[in-house]
C-alpha cells in the first residue's frame, strides 16, 4: 500500500507537469474557437435542418461568434473581414427574423470592412425577410450616401425607410440626399415623400420643417430647370439669354413668382439664376433647415 506522503508527492509532481504543459499550450488555447476562414463555417440551411428545434439558440451562438469576430478583427487592426458576411448569412439563415443581426452586419460590412456589395446583400436579405423593419432601409441609405457617395440610391432607401417606418423626419434626410443627387427626378421624388410625410404628422415643429423643406425642394427644382434651360440656350446661341423671358420653352420669367414666395433673379453676364428668398441653388447643404429669411 502506498504511503500518503508518496501519493501527495505524486499529486504535486503531476500538478507541476500539468501546469507547465498548460502554460506552454497558451498560444494554441488562445487561437481555439477563432474564425480565420469563412470556409470553416457550416452551411446555414444544413445547420437549420440539424438544429432539432433549437435553430434560434444556434443563431444566438453564431451571433456571439460574429460579435467576437468584429471585436477581435477591430482590436487586431486586421484588414481581414472575409468571415463577417458568411457569419451574418449563417445567423440570418438560422433566424431570418434576427433584424438586429442584419443591421449590425450591414453597418460593419460597410463602415469597418468596406465591403459594400456584401453590406447591401445582407441588408437586402433583411428587407426581403423583414419588409417592415425601416432601420434596414435607413442603414442601406447611410451606407450608400456616406460610404459609396451614391446619393440617389441613398435617397431612394431613405424614402423607403420614411414610408415603411412612417417616420416623417426620415423624409427630411431623403430630400436632403435628393438635393445632393441633384436631378429633376430626385427633386420630384423628394416632393412626393415630403407631401406624404406631411399627411402623417400633426406635430407643429415637424410640419414646419417639412413644409419649409418642401418649399426649398420646389424652388430648387425650378432653379434646376432654369439652369438647364439657360445652359441649353447658351449652347445653341453661344451667349447667355438677356433675360429669363428670352428662354423659349421655359415656363419661368422674371415676373414669375418662385415657390419660396419671392422671385427669380437673373444675371445675364454670368448666366447665374437665384431665388430672391433662398438664394443660389446650393445642393450640398444637408444640415437642418434654417428659418426662412424675410422676403426682400
Amino acid at each position, binding site marked *: 500500500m502506498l504511503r500518503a506522503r508518496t501519493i501527495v508527492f505524486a499529486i504535486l509532481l503531476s500538478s507541476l507537469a500539468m501546469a507547465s504543459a498548460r502554460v506552454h499550450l497558451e498560444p494554441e488555447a488562445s487561437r481555439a474557437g477563432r474564425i480565420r476562414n469563412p470556409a470553416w463555417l457550416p452551411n446555414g440551411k444544413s445547420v437549420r435542418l440539424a438544429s432539432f428545434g*433549437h435553430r434560434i439558440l444556434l443563431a*444566438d451562438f453564431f451571433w456571439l461568434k460574429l*460579435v467576437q469576430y468584429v471585436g477581435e478583427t477591430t482590436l487586431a487592426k486586421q484588414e481581414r473581414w472575409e468571415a463577417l458576411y458568411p457569419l451574418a448569412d449563417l445567423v440570418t439563415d438560422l433566424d431570418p427574423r434576427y433584424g438586429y443581426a442584419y443591421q449590425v452586419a450591414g453597418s460593419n460590412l460597410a463602415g469597418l470592412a468596406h465591403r459594400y456589395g456584401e453590406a447591401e446583400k445582407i441588408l437586402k436579405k433583411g428587407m426581403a425577410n423583414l419588409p417592415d423593419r425601416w432601420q434596414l432601409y435607413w442603414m442601406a441609405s447611410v451606407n450608400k450616401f456616406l460610404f459609396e457617395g451614391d446619393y440617389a440610391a441613398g435617397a431612394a432607401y431613405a424614402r423607403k425607410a420614411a414610408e415603411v417606418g412612417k417616420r416623417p423626419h426620415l423624409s427630411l434626410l431623403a430630400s436632403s440626399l435628393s438635393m445632393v443627387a441633384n436631378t429633376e427626378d430626385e427633386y420630384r421624388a423628394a416632393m412626393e415623400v415630403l407631401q406624404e410625410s406631411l399627411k402623417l404628422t400633426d406635430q407643429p415643429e415637424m410640419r414646419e420643417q417639412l413644409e419649409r423643406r418642401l418649399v426649398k425642394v420646389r424652388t430648387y427644382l425650378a432653379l434646376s430647370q432654369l439652369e438647364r434651360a439657360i445652359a441649353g440656350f447658351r449652347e445653341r446661341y453661344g451667349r447667355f439669354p438677356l433675360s429669363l423671358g428670352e428662354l423659349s420653352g421655359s415656363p419661368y420669367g422674371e415676373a414669375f413668382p418662385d415657390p419660396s414666395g419671392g422671385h427669380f433673379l437673373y444675371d445675364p453676364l454670368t448666366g447665374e439664376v437665384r431665388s430672391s428668398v433662398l438664394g443660389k441653388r446650393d445642393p450640398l447643404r444637408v444640415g437642418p433647415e434654417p428659418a426662412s429669411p424675410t422676403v426682400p
Partner: protein
Amino acid sequence: MKTLAIAGNTLREALRERLMYNLVVFALVLIAGSLTVSQLTVGEQFRIIADISASSTQVFGTLIAVFLGVALISRELDRRTCYAVLARPVSRAGFIAGKYLGLLATLALNVLVMALVSALMLLVYTGGLGFVSTGFLGAFGLILVQLAVCAGFAILFAAFSTPTLAVIFTLSIVGAGHAFSEVRTFWLQSSHSQVQLKWLVKVLDFVLPNMGLLDAKEALTYGDPLQLSSLLARGAYGLFYAAVIVSLAALVFSRKDVR
C-alpha cells in the same frame, strides 16, 4: 382511482430519482448562467436569456422524460415489482396509464421550476414583468406538451425493448420529429418536389410528431402574441398524439409476457 394511485406512487418514486435532480440542476445552472452569457453580446441581451432558458428547459426536460420514462417501466419489469401491482385487480392498460400520468406530473413540476427560474432571470434583466405574455406562457406550456409526447414514446419503447434501445429509439423519433418540421417546408417549397415526395410528407405528417408545431420559443424571443385558439389547437394536437402513443404502449404491454 387505481390508476391515480399508481400515478401518485410513480410521482413519489420519480422525485426520489437522483438522475432527475442532476439534470434539473444542470438546466437551472444554464438558465442562471444565461444572464452572464448575455453580457457577451452587443444588444439583444433579452433574446439570449430567453433563448437559453427555453432551450435548456426543452433539452433537459426531454432528457428527463426519456430516461425517467424508460427507467420507470424497465425497472418494474427487471425487478419484477410490477407483479405485485398486476396481481391485484389492476388492468395492464391502467398500470401504463398510471405510470404515464405520474411521469407527466413529474415533468410538469420540472417545467414549472425551470419556467420560474427563467422568469426570475428575465425579471432581473428587464426589471419588470412585461415579458410575461402569451408568448412566455405558450412557450413553456408547449414545451410541457412536447415532453408529454417524448414521455409517451419512452413508455411505448420501454414496454417492448431493452432500456438502451428504448432510449435510442425515443431520442431518434423525437429528433426526427424536430427535423421533419423543418424539412417538410423545404420539401413542399422545392420546385423539384415530386408527387411521391408530397405523398411522403402527407404520410409523415400523421406518423411523426411535428415538434415544430409544439414549439413557441420564437414567440418568447420576439414577444409575439399567441392566439389562444392556436395555442389550444397545438396543445390538443400534442396531447392527443401522446394519447395515441400511450394507448399503443398499453396495447403492447397488455400482450407482453411478463413472466
